[in-house]
């Protein structure tokens, strides 16, 4: 998880204006959407436009992910055929199952060989948005070595569960925990569902803080205005960075003296505390704060 993936910004795949500004909006990743943002009559058009955009537009350091249609729709296979040949960084697979991930992986092996791309260079991002997906997230991730992260889709998930989506998000507490925990186990990105109400700034901030506190590593955005707030909240605070630096310094000194466990500010410091400090400093470095 060397790449910083705090924000993944959704962009409608059939909109040239948005596609051509995708690389300069400051998101860590952009998701060029061929699924929900594109009407059923324009699937062919968006697929060709997104293919041309990836081939011709400079996205700078922004990671380019394409959300393809579900394989069961018939559009998904065509999306892969067209878009994988211009080598996006990753494909996001809607309503992913183990079988879908294996199928997409198989298609990518063939396309990479035909196009002369390095094997495994196109990564996968399952979208977990069904009750089945939540309960089988571990085996879905394990279905391909290409999986680098998971996006939790709460709207579809709550619809599948037959429950109401609320602003507070208590109904997705379990799903967030599950995604965070399993993704940490596989050392891949755990991306939280987007927050839809652009006018509720306080609610938005609380929602990001909740996701961060449960162990999710980033959040999807549906508007460029959301990017800065997500980055601010996901960035380690100056206090956290300062404490992490002191932990690392004290660890060095303890090592020299041959001490395994020591105390800092009256609190015990052992391996998990050191690991957390290392994690904070790594994220701070990636975010350019060090």
């Amino acid at each position, binding site marked *: 998880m060397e790449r910083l993936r705090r924000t993944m910004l959704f962009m409608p795949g059939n*909109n*040239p204006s948005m596609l051509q500004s995708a690389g300069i909006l400051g998101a860590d990743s952009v998701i060029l959407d061929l699924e929900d943002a594109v009407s059923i009559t324009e699937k062919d*058009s968006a697929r*060709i436009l997104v*293919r*041309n955009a990836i081939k*011709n*537009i400079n996205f700078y350091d922004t990671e380019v992910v394409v959300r393809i249609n579900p394989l069961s729709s018939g559009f998904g296979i065509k999306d892969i055929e067209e878009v994988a040949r211009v080598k996006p960084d990753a494909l996001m697979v809607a309503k992913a199952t183990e079988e879908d991930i294996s199928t997409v992986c198989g298609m990518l092996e063939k396309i990479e060989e035909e196009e002369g791309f390095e094997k495994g260079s196109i990564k996968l991002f399952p979208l977990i948005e069904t009750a089945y997906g939540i309960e089988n997230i571990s085996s879905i991730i394990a279905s391909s070595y290409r999986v680098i992260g998971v996006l939790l889709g709460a709207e579809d998930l709550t619809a599948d569960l037959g429950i109401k989506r609320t602003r507070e998000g208590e109904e997705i507490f379990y799903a967030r925990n599950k995604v965070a925990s399993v993704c940490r186990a596989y050392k891949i990105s755990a991306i939280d569902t987007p927050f839809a109400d652009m006018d509720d700034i306080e609610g938005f901030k609380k929602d990001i803080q909740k996701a961060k506190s449960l162990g999710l590593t980033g959040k999807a955005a549906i508007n460029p205005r959301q990017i800065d707030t997500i980055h601010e909240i996901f960035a380690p605070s100056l206090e956290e960075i300062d404490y992490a630096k002191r932990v690392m310094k004290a660890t060095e000194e303890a090592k020299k003296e041959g001490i395994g466990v020591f105390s800092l500010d009256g609190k015990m410091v052992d391996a998990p505390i050191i690991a957390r400090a290392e994690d904070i400093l790594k994220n701070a470095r990636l975010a350019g704060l060090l």
Partner: protein
Amino acid sequence: MEIKVPAKAGTMESNDIYIMIQPNDEGGIQLDLESIVMAQFGKQIKETILATLEELDVKDAHIIAKDRGALDYTIRARIETAVKRAI
């Protein structure tokens, strides 16, 4: 590729181009182009449209294009979509 039925692609939104394509009974390519940047880029847009048609092996077609400031990649995409819908 033979253009068999009339087809459309693109939109009238800014940075896009709206393409209508239909069979041309008189043979050859007939292109009617309107653009908000006609004076500055009319020639290049025309060249891009004709080059894309040639790559797709379209020899006979009547194209009406209404450009709203589309970049090359969009012009090419919309022509390709319109042609694929028309064959």
